[in-house]
């Protein structure tokens, strides 16, 4: 599952993963998260560029952290 946990602000106690679904980063990015690395990982597991773009533009799309990743996959 393309989980946003590794780049997301902590505080919810990893709610989504503990309920069998991928984190969708509703708390936005943690400071200086390496979103680009996670985006590349998503590419490796077979996500399309559009889907990767959507992962980083759902919540916190205007943050510098997520923009670095989303701009790479924007057509």
């Amino acid at each position: 599952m393309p989980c946003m946990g590794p780049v997301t602000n902590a505080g919810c106690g990893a709610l989504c993963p503990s309920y069998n679904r991928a984190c969708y980063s509703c708390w936005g990015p943690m400071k200086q998260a390496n979103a680009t690395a996670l985006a590349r990982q998503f590419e490796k597991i077979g996500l399309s560029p559009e889907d990767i773009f959507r992962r980083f533009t759902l919540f916190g799309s205007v943050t510098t952290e997520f923009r670095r990743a989303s701009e790479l996959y924007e057509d």
Partner: protein
Amino acid sequence: MKISIDYIARVEGEGSVHFEIEDGRLKDLKLNIWEPPRFFEGFLCQRRFDEVPDIVARICGICPVSHMTTSIRALEKALGFNPSPDIIHLRRIMALSQIVASHLIHLYMLAMPDYYRLYSVADMLPRFGSEIKRLMKMKEVVNNLTALFGGRALHPIVMVVGGFTNIPSRDLVGKMIKELEDIKADAREVLRVVSELPFPDATNNSEYVTIHTPSGYAINEGFIVSNNGINIKEDAYYSVFGEEEVLYSNAKRTIIKGRGSLMSGALARLNLKFDMLHEDAKKAAKEIGFVVPDDNPFHNNLAQAIEVVHGISECIELLVGLTTRRPEIQIKVKEGEGFAVTEAPRGLLCHHYVLNRRGVVERANIITPTAHNFLSIEENLKKLVQRYINEEKEELILKCEMLVRAYDPCFSCSVH
């Protein structure tokens, strides 16, 4: 004399009422929902179907479950997926828990202070401490119920297109049943307190509209019915109802084509399907002398309190009859279009989506309860002002505010 209620406090979102009285007659009245538009229908386009419920949940902080359920049902119809009875059962628990939570908040924090001539729930504390404690206790229990099945009470995460990602254990469900049993008596007390409020006299002549099924008190699915002959499948919605733009408001206004205003919400539900209520709710309603049809729009508060009794009793039954295995989520992506109507706490809520072959939203339309009630609020405000036109200005303003609040409008939802 021009009267402007520039900012109606104690409602969801931002709106105002303006009217003019000349020679003892009401000249003109407008409900202006000036909260800025939020463009949800716009930015939902180009999102994938499985992101939609999480996005639309953010339309409302009080009824996220309603927006999620309605969008999930519309999307599942577009994708040709039929939810199993287990899934429908779970969604009903979610919906009822939220309806009870929403009604409690509305009754105590938004509506009630007016009737005691107080400004807020904080002002109620010295005189009604035990009542406020009751509110907190009940709200906590029903929030826990939403969280038990949804992962969290606000903007749940477990409810997704195709089913639920988690089912709570038997132990936790057992504990929940006990907690709910514990607030059953409180629910009847809420109804008693609300029934003793001094509701002003008023009559409504908007058409009552709700959804109905022969199998139970319809919340998440049903035929659209009214007290004036509407009886259609939800897919025929657009043939009967029309959305129109209003120059002075950021929210759209929905009417019954060729007929005019409609009223939806707790009072409409009770007026049209009282017989489908849980026995406990029917009994409690009888005790306070509530009889249908009831045409006083202020009694929407009373109807909500009856639904609180209903919701808790039915949730207990649903929990007792729960199967605790998790249905597999199986969704095949395809092109399609889906439309769904549900009963949100404050009335009818519609979601409509067109998906392309990659399951991406091409078009979205959302019609909220407050859009449905918009014209009815205005019409009943006009009648109210005309009826109480000789009262002091302050008293008249208060009555107008009380009527708007009785509808439990959500202006934030209406400008989605």
